[in-house]
């Protein structure tokens, strides 16, 4: 067993874990924070995205002990009390989710994008989301939500060119 201490959403936590315990298992099973999801086990789908020391990380691909001493932010740490984070609010307003399973990862991914690139184009958003898979929305309203969260105009209901055009 490994002892570790880290900060999760601003709160210090300590835990005893096996060496093989993954960060996502620590969050979900040990700490009971089930907003971070497991969708593929092979680092493609992005449902498990969290921020570790400010970097966006797939929590299914990192051992818990590697987060010893780190600051971790999960989807549960994005809202400020009852006030949703602007990205959360934009997903809600623009119907950027259906079943909601990929949504925590999408929001954490969008937050990382907007930190680096506050006004991304539609094409930049689509390419940034390469590591996040959604099966319900066709990404249409996810892209619109991220545009809205970045304070840019949101395309209305007309056909537009693809990201690559």
């Amino acid at each position, binding site marked *: 067993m490994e002892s570790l201490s880290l900060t999760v959403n601003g709160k210090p936590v300590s835990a005893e874990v096996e060496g093989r315990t993954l960060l996502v298992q620590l969050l979900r099973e040990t700490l009971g924070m089930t*907003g971070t999801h497991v969708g593929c086990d*092979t680092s493609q789908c992005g449902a498990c995205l969290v921020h570790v020391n400010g970097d966006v990380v797939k929590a299914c691909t990192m051992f818990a002990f590697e987060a010893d001493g780190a600051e971790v932010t999960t989807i549960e740490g994005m809202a400020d009390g009852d006030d949703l984070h602007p990205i959360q609010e934009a997903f809600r307003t623009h119907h950027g989710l*259906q079943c909601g399973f990929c949504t925590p990862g999408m929001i954490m991914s969008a937050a990382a994008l907007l930190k680096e690139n506050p006004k991304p184009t539609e094409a930049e958003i689509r390419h940034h989301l390469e590591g996040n*898979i959604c099966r319900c929305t066709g990404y249409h309203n996810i892209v619109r939500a991220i545009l809205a969260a970045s304070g840019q105009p949101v395309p209305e209901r007309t056909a537009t060119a693809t990201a690559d055009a």
Partner: protein
Amino acid sequence: MEKFGKAQPVARFEDHRFVTGHGRYIDDIAPEGALHAVFVRSQVAHGTLAPVDLTDVREMDGVRLAVAAEDLDELGVRNSMKATVVKNRDGTKGVKTLRPILATGRVRFVGEPIALIVADTLAQAKDAAEAVFAEIDDLPAKVDIAPGGETLHENAPENVAFTWGKGDEDTVKSAIAGAAHVVHTRVVDNRIIVNSMEPRGCVADWDGERLHFGFGGQGVWGTRDELAKMLDLKKKQVHVTNPDVGGGFGMKGMDYPEYFSIAGAARALGRPIRWMSERTEAMLSDNGGRDLISDTTLAFDADFRLVAYHVETVCNLGAYNSQYAQPIQTDLFLKVATGVYDLRTVSLNCRGIYTNTTQIDAYRGAGRPEAIFALERSMDNAARTLGVDPLDLRRRNFIKPDQFPYKTALAETYDVGDFERVLDRVAREADLAGFAARRAASEAKGKLRGQGLCYYIESILGDKEETSAIEYGDNGKVRLYVGTQSNGQGHETVYATFLSDQTGIPVEAIEIVQGDSDLIKEGGGTGGSRSVTVQNTATLATVETMTRAFQSYLAEKTGEDGIEFDDERFRIPGSNETPTMLDVAAMARADGREDLLRFQEKIELESRSFPNGAHIAEVEIDPETGLVSVDRYTVTDDFGNLINPMLAEGQVHGGVAQGIGQALTERVVYDGEGQLLTATFMDYAMPRAYDLPMIGFTTEPVPSTTNPMGMKGCGEAGTVGALAAIANAMADAFSTRGLDAPDMPFTPERVWQALQQEAIAAE
């Protein structure tokens, strides 16, 4: 329409919990201390299985139970799954296979469950599962979709499960023989893996008398009845729940063997057990979709009017009959086989084939996407072959507005429709006029551009009956109990908004209760694009009953007749009092009138409704790489009246994306030995954000006459239309090089290879 919802794009009430990480999916709600289940699965596609010896495994750390087929009797679990079979053309029945809970004497696909291990921790259960030695004598694997090959089931010679047919073949043959034009088309509808982002999972618990079974599903009552039968329990001993579900798409609507062995294990141990499928496990064991080949013949007269249509289909069933597999490419394909055309002479044949692959069952649209893809791909091919404009060919053959209600040759009666109007609109929205310039611009860049049309129609399906109950709580809340089951569509918002519009009860006071077989007596779950139409019709009936009961009660109390309700308040003649529904319920509670605090009605739709519409796709192909990009995608739908346009549009986006995924990226590969080579997201190409364009969406509603709201259903329509739109656009693009497009999926490698024909031909 005003009465039936204000058609507002209301943002969803359920989203707060989803965007903050407080959704409650099945793996989030396991009881404290639940044991973990892991399955030992077959690693070979076909073989003879010796009895599995689990003696040593049972001694391993943390292992509480290890079960193979031989142990199911002791567990009191029946070792056979149920499945529907179809009637053959000759009147006999399709083959019933024995589909075991745990492989019994033989394995028939990679991923088939052989043993169940239950242990204290997930790691212990996995360690024990790895230590199980299953002795399998390999048999040749049968993986192609054609009769013949190594026999899987003794009672299915040549691996043919059924030989289904409808329509008089001789009449069709003679009509084809006498036709001015005949066009043959082969339509390959590729297999997909459903891949809901949340895989399947369940939690089972036994309290000494009753079983609680929670799972990510599409309804609870069918599974309750089946659990009772399989575990020899009374129905009232089984409590089934569905929590938040991370996508289902038909795949989660069927029962699976894992559920029964886990429920039996929970009863045997008297401890809660949890199971969550991993992704590869899901790709090996979830029912897949599509996987059929249809050879079609369209016959026209000299004016290009359809005179006959024949379809010869072979479809893959996988290794066993899944729960509803046999009716999909047969009875459900039939529903809309003749599409939107006035076509009286038609025959369909379909053979179902067993293979050493995972079962195939319902996937978004179940039979209707397949039927429309076959027909609309064939119509497009006919237009190209005969030199007729594809829109014109369709217009010549549309069922005209004055022909409704229109009884199709083999199946349904369409209530209403105006296909010309929808087609006119989509042509404008897609800027057909500007296509030539866009194609020239693509050509100037060295790229190919193609445009494809699909005019689809589909039939909403599932149980025509549904129940709604309205209950006033003593906390000021009103509970609406529903028999459908959200899988992410936003039912909580739609139902609460609808009830509020009908009654004036504030939406904040309304709680939707779904997915609980103890709290709700019966229901039809989600499937077949049925939910909002059937549930709101039931709610409307319940509101009417409640309104009448409240009017009588107020009449008794006040001695006044002629009390009216105006959708918000009761108006009592000669009184300034204008009580709301909540006020009247409070009075009734004070008067001890418990009978006025709960109302329930069950309705049955008189018939189906028929969503229809047109999709126009424009693709651009880079011949250097074979990469296809969908440059424009335009949909005009006739969904009748919409309750929440924003959510309906979201259903279209998602449906189209699943269709584009099947057409462009999603390729399932089994090797000759039946090994699934595309069993992770590293190998199976789920469509990403950059694979898809923004999707243009408009509506031209013709309200349905078969339900009081005039709705038509929207959940599957996007998928139904997308396959042929993309395939026809690819055919159009390839035609600029004088070539035929390859079969779906149009992966870069396949497209590049197909384009090399041109180079070879040129040499």
